């Protein structure tokens, strides 16, 4: 019953084919059966059914919106009042927030039913979902492969059709890369489009929440609910929210100017199967009348090193609040304050989080700040300028989302640099603050390949329209794991 798109489920609910309670029970049963995926950290069946009943009542009153009664999952980085919010970390294993994140509030207000909290890399630091304290998530296409990260649980849950949509966050690719590796769609909106209030911070100047679903229309439906001004986030931009779903049909691929950054196609270490799939996807656009242009983003190779200064620097400060004093993990029987800090943090954080705290602390230290943090900020501006120049000539930039398809569990876990390089195509977008989405564009070796589309600031509607147009010509987005490869 439930393994359809959000739009289809909403239509079924509105026709009375099934109730939200029935739909939610079906989703909960599917989650229960798919325990091996380890996509969820917390499932909330009682609360979900209460919300489903309320959604049915709302629909009966004639007050339903496009998401009313539709079950969704939230990445466990979004604070949920009364429901444990772990951020994939031992540190917050017992943390139950007394407030909802903005994104949670908005989707609830739209009538979406939360069925649980999805697994993720610890504090969103990782590209494989292997750094989670709750264990790795498996890729529904191949249980020996990773689903990508950090929003690996949301990606796997949507790819396995456990839920039709889920929320994610993207600091360096954490929505787009797992979407690519699991064959679904994921959108990172413009920085400031969606409030960060109640979203546990990793790197504040890069973090952005976004939707994950199987097609562009569902992304649009979710984004319309998630976007909007929130006075509690000073970096959130006060700007009207278009009806993204209504705008989909108004986009025409004919005449759409698509830029192909040559640096993204000549990068070393890119899986030839990925390149081939992307080139074929580009041909689909060309055939539909899009104008394909060669463009350059000259500072592309600097994005990863810049990111791995700025993101850890911000993270080292953001994660200082986890000190064992007020909430979260606290070591037993501290002998003094220093012992309390050292052991609470030593026990509460995993290896990758500690590594980034150390890197970030170092980058901000007296004597190194100018050479690392300040220089990285300068290069960040250069990267942003590259995009600004390129986007004067084209409407959308197309590129692979990730250099490879889903890799084997454990294959990069001991090599942080190799792991960091799985985000080479996504990181620059966060540094520039631009919107970008990933959509399924074929397979390589039986594993999904993601096409990335990058747009102008606040031009999510055009990105969604382009993706939707592509999905009118292809059916990659409706392929599902288990059915075929």
């Amino acid at each position: 019953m439930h393994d359809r798109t959000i739009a289809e489920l909403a239509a079924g609910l509105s026709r009375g084919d099934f109730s939200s309670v029935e739909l939610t029970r079906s989703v909960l049963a599917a989650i229960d059966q798919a325990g091996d995926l380890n996509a969820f950290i917390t499932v909330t069946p009682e609360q979900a059914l209460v919300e489903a009943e309320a959604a049915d009542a709302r629909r009966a009153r004639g007050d339903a919106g496009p998401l009313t009664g539709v079950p969704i999952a939230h990445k466990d980085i979004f604070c949920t009042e009364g429901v444990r919010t772990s951020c994939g970390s031992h540190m917050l294993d017992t943390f139950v927030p007394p407030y909802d994140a903005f994104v949670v509030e908005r989707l609830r207000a739209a009538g979406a039913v939360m069925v649980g909290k999805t697994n993720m890399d610890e504090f969103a630091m990782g590209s494989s979902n292997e750094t989670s304290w709750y264990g790795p998530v498996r890729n529904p296409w191949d249980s020996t492969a990773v689903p990508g990260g950090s929003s690996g649980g949301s990606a796997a849950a949507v790819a396995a059709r456990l839920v039709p949509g889920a929320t994610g966050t993207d600091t360096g690719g954490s929505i787009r890369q797992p979407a690519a590796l699991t064959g679904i769609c994921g959108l990172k909106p413009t920085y400031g489009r969606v409030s960060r209030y109640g979203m546990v911070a990793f790197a504040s100047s890069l973090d952005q929440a976004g939707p994950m679903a199987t097609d562009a229309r569902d992304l649009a439906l979710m984004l319309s609910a998630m976007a909007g001004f929130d006075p509690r986030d000073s970096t959130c931009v006060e700007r009207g929210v278009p009806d993204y779903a209504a705008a989909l049909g108004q986009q025409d691929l004919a005449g759409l100017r698509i830029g192909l950054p040559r640096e993204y196609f000549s990068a070393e270490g890119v899986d030839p199967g990925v390149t081939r799939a992307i080139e074929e996807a580009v041909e689909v656009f060309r055939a539909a009348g899009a104008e394909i242009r060669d463009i350059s983003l000259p500072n592309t190779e600097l994005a990863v090193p810049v990111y791995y200064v700025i993101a850890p620097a911000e993270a080292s400060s953001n994660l200082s609040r986890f000190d064992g004093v007020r909430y979260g993990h606290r070591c037993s029987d501290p002998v003094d304050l220093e012992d309390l800090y050292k052991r609470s943090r030593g026990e509460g954080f995993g290896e990758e989080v500690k590594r980034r705290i150390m890197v970030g602390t170092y980058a901000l230290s007296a004597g190194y700040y100018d050479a690392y943090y300040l220089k990285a900020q300068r290069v960040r501006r250069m990267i942003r300028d590259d995009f600004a120049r390129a986007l004067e000539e084209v409407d959308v930039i197309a590129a692979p989302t990730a250099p490879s398809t889903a890799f084997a569990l454990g294959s990069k876990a001991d090599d942080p640099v190799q792991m960091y390089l799985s985000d080479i195509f996504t990181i620059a977008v966060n540094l520039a603050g631009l919107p970008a989405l990933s959509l399924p564009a074929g397979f390589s070796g039986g594993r999904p390949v993601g096409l990335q589309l990058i747009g102008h600031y606040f031009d999510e509607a055009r990105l969604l329209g382009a993706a939707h147009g592509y999905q009118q010509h292809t059916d990659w987005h409706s392929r599902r794991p288990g059915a075929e490869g």
Partner: protein
Amino acid sequence: MQWEAVIGLELHAQLATRTKIFSGASTAYGADANTQACAIDLGMPGVLPVLNERAVRFAIRLGLALDAEVAGRSVFARKNYFYPDLPKGYQISQYEIPVVGTGHLDIDLDDGTSKRIGVTRAHLEEDAGKSLHEGFGAMSGIDLNRAGTPLLEIVSEPDLRSAKEAVAYMKKMHSLVRYLRICDGNMQEGSFRCDANVSVRPLGQDEFGTRTEIKNLNSFRFVERAINYEIERQIELIQDGGSVTQETRLYDPDRGETRAMRGKEEANDYRYFPDPDLLPLEITADLINEVRAELPELPDVRRARFVADYGLPNYDAGVLTASRELADFFEAVAAGCDDAKLAANWVMGDFAGALNRDSLDLATSPVDAEALSGLLRRILDDTISGKIAKEVFEAMWQGEGDADTIISDRGLTQVTDASEIEALVDAAIAGNPQQLEQYRAGKTKLMGFFVGQVMKASGGKANPQQVNEILRRRLDG
């Protein structure tokens, strides 16, 4: 060798906003522990700071009053360090670009001249919470009510040359922030505190000596004592062949000495960087003009006006403008009785004395400006003498009613009837023949004796001027 002290102060003024600098929690003092700390003040995961506009306006007020540059763009940074009363593990503070730039404040010196003290900068920041070390066994308690309270840190140039000058500067700034109504100035509650940077050098030397910083001085007296102690300590140290170590010291008021903090507590590398949760603070010319329009008349301007318009001595004008409330009170009394000098004498004299004696302030005074000017009017229209007025004032202070009621109830109206006074004068002369003889023999000082006799006989009510005139006529005539 002659030594010179070089002192700079960092003053922390707690801004009198109703809510905190980055959250909507109340800033009221004295609430039960942790009842005024919301999720943002507690540094909960995912919550974000939102700047309090009022705190910014208050900073602009001070900037304008110090004739300083108000930055069109200033930046909040994170100062990172671990401490249990610092919930986020960092303090949000302006670091490289403060909201208020270079300005100045003029202080009065003992010799009657004034001295201009440079203000380097003033920046906005949040306060930390408090650690409570009693009542928790081997543990410490944390009260985060104060966490996130807005502070303005005002940094002076090293222009001060003695503890006395430092105190004069601090008092002037204390008066100014209260004048501007941006800080309640309550030093016991920690609303206005001081860190002092102190160094010494041989008189005439240009280079500064090595400085020490004395932290958290919360009274004028402690500032003076701590600085004097520190100056003496540094001079002795150098004269004994040693050298001053740059360090942070604490003042122990019980022992009257400063002591070095443990090295560990100051070995922090704060890793400042711009807070990515807050955009740069942009202040428009319109906002500055708006704040300028709501500024009160500034104390130095008002003082000059008191001298020019009321003919008051500069010193008196200074005393009367030390607080906005006192200056307002004086002006109300002066307007009510139409005699500024008399008003000034009473406000600074009997009135201030009574407040001081009973530990009251203007807000709790039993005699308001209207009542006091009512009393002064009775002096000016000769209903009572200045001497009787003191008695009436005391009765007013005790709550017996207004001046007219007391004068009438007690029958204190001055005797101005000439025949009545003549009778008293004649009786006094008749009753003291010996003194009369001496007076007429040339001992004219006895005039005072006769005045006293007449006043006594009248119960103090006879008009002293008339008594004098009539006596002189009778004795000399």
